[in-house]
């Protein structure tokens, strides 16, 4: 039998049903691997072995009694540390929330527990999800399992690295501008940014409220469809949640893709795209062409303005959302004896890291009197232009194919002193968040240094199923998703 860390979530479910493995054995194998290797990867902020084993034990007992178990029974799941877990530190990788223990579970966490998943640990991230490399974590940088000198991407870098390193079969992250697809691409795993409003955000610590979406990660498409089916759906506690039933994505996975048209936007192959990445994407497009998909060239002319408009909208929303961290209700409070306004300003100055401050400043500036029209309103108008680009594309194609990122994983420290260059690494993922549409990233090969390349597919609102079917077609004829780093 293959070792646990080489088995997919679906294989682990079958092995339990066949009596070859138990939830306890799977959990022990994951904990063991984390214990051996996370000292070099640094994917987790906190791991709770006793609780995980307790949960696994009770799942095994219920199985012995013949009880009906949830769809993720006995599968260890890693959670990005910006989703609230009752009584379990939820830090957003920030000093300001270092010892914060939420008084409630996020809806996603409730759903995972109800599905009998084993919550094994909380993963590292860029502070408040502000970043594309997981280097802005206040605690430590996570390393890319394919090359420990490189970043795993971000902001959900811990979740992507944990999957890639074989620490867990499933992970959950969140996406505001590419924070799941980009690290999935860098780490050679899969990530889905669902349609805005498809997954409840109750209990997700907010960054950009018109952009944020909880986003699942897995190593192959069947596992990803399974996890998405569990987390998607309406929740009355999130008023931006779409009130429509979520399909069974696994059941729809094997429906044929007959006659599906895939659009390739010329703007995504412009300057700045790494030559190896361009080559792998072109090969992937050729593979899909051979598989019977119709490939069509399309135009998305406002792509070049994606980063400029995104960094106005996202920081404006972030500056408002982060106003709640005031040193009064929870989180860090300055030890200085001061008046009230000083208490706010000092607590925030001491608690927030560099990138958080920079974004709060940028967003506050864009919303401030005299600049609101020139920056914030202008960015919202350009955002409408981006949506019109995609609406036009959907008249001729069913999905859009492009690279996930312009490069493969960069070196630790390479971009930390140049915030703008770091922002530009999100150029291909930001549009889906700005427009609200779903997007997926899947492994499609390696560059000359052996680093994974991600292929992105985007579809119209609520067409996650279409993305899964394209990925299934691709993965049934390729084996990039089966490659694992040597650790």
């Amino acid at each position, binding site marked *: 039998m293959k070792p646990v860390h080489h088995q997919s979530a679906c294989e682990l479910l079958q092995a339990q049903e066949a009596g070859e493995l138990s939830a306890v054995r799977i959990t022990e194998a994951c904990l063991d691997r984390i214990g051996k290797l996370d000292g070099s990867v640094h994917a987790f902020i906190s791991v709770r072995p006793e609780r995980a084993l307790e949960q696994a034990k009770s799942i095994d007992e219920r199985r012995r009694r013949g009880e009906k178990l949830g769809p993720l029974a006995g599968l260890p799941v890693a959670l990005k540390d910006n989703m609230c877990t009752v009584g379990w530190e939820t830090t957003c990788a920030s000093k300001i929330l270092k010892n914060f223990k939420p008084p409630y579970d996020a809806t996603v966490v409730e759903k995972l527990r109800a599905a009998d998943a084993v919550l094994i640990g909380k993963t590292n991230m860029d502070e408040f999800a502000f970043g594309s490399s997981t280097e802005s974590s206040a605690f430590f940088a996570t390393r890319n399992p394919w090359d420990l000198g490189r970043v795993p991407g971000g902001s959900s870098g811990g979740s992507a690295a944990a999957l890639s390193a074989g620490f867990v079969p499933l992970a959950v992250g969140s996406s505001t501008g590419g924070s799941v697809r980009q690290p999935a691409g860098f780490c050679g795993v899969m990530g889905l940014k669902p349609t805005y409003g498809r997954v409840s955000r109750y209990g997700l610590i907010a960054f950009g409220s018109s952009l944020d979406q909880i986003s699942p990660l897995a190593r192959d498409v069947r596992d990803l469809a399974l996890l998405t089916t569990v987390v998607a759906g309406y929740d009355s506690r999130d008023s931006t949640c779409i009130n429509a039933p979520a399909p069974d994505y696994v059941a729809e996975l094997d429906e044929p893709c007959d006659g599906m048209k895939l659009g390739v936007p010329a703007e995504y192959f412009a300057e700045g795209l790494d030559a190896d990445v361009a080559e792998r994407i072109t090969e992937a497009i050729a593979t899909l062409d051979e598989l019977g998909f119709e490939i069509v060239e399309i135009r998305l002319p406002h792509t070049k303005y994606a980063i400029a408009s995104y960094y106005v909208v996202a920081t404006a929303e972030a500056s408002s959302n982060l106003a709640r961290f005031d040193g009064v209700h929870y989180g860090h409070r300055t030890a200085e004896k001061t008046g009230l306004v000083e208490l706010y300003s000092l607590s925030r100055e001491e608690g927030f890291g560099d990138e958080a401050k920079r974004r709060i400043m940028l967003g506050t*500036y864009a919303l401030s009197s005299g600049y609101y029209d020139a920056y914030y309103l202008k960015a919202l108008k350009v955002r409408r232009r981006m949506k019109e680009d995609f609406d036009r594309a959907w008249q001729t194609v069913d999905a859009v194919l492009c690279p996930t990122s312009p490069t493969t994983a960069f070196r630790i420290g390479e971009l930390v002193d140049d915030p703008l260059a770091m922002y530009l690494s999100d150029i291909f993922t930001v549009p889906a968040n700005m427009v609200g549409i779903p997007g997926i990233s899947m492994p499609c090969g390696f560059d000359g240094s052996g680093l994974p390349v991600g292929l992105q597919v985007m579809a119209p609102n609520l067409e996650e199923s279409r993305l899964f079917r394209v990925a299934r077609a691709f993965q049934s004829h390729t084996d990039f998703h089966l490659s694992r780093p040597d650790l």
Partner: protein
Amino acid sequence: MIDEKEVQHVARLARLKLSSEELNRFSSQLSKILDYIGQLNEVDTSSVEPMSHPLDLVNVFRADEVKPSLSREDALAGAPQKRDGFFLVPPVLEWGSSEE
């Protein structure tokens, strides 16, 4: 361009007590970012409605019924300082000098 004086003003609005090193660094970094953002002016948006949200949202109402919620104890559990069931803060108004 955004100078240190403006950065100072924005920091006050954002309730951040930046150090002088940060004021200096942020003013050059933010200037560079704002300069890049300036390219948005190339886009003709004369007849375009701003898009504040990806969904056509409407207000979501619910019946005005009492439902279970956090207890006072749970809500206060993370407070850095509390007293008698309240969040504790320093005096909002400074008395001292005006009393003479």
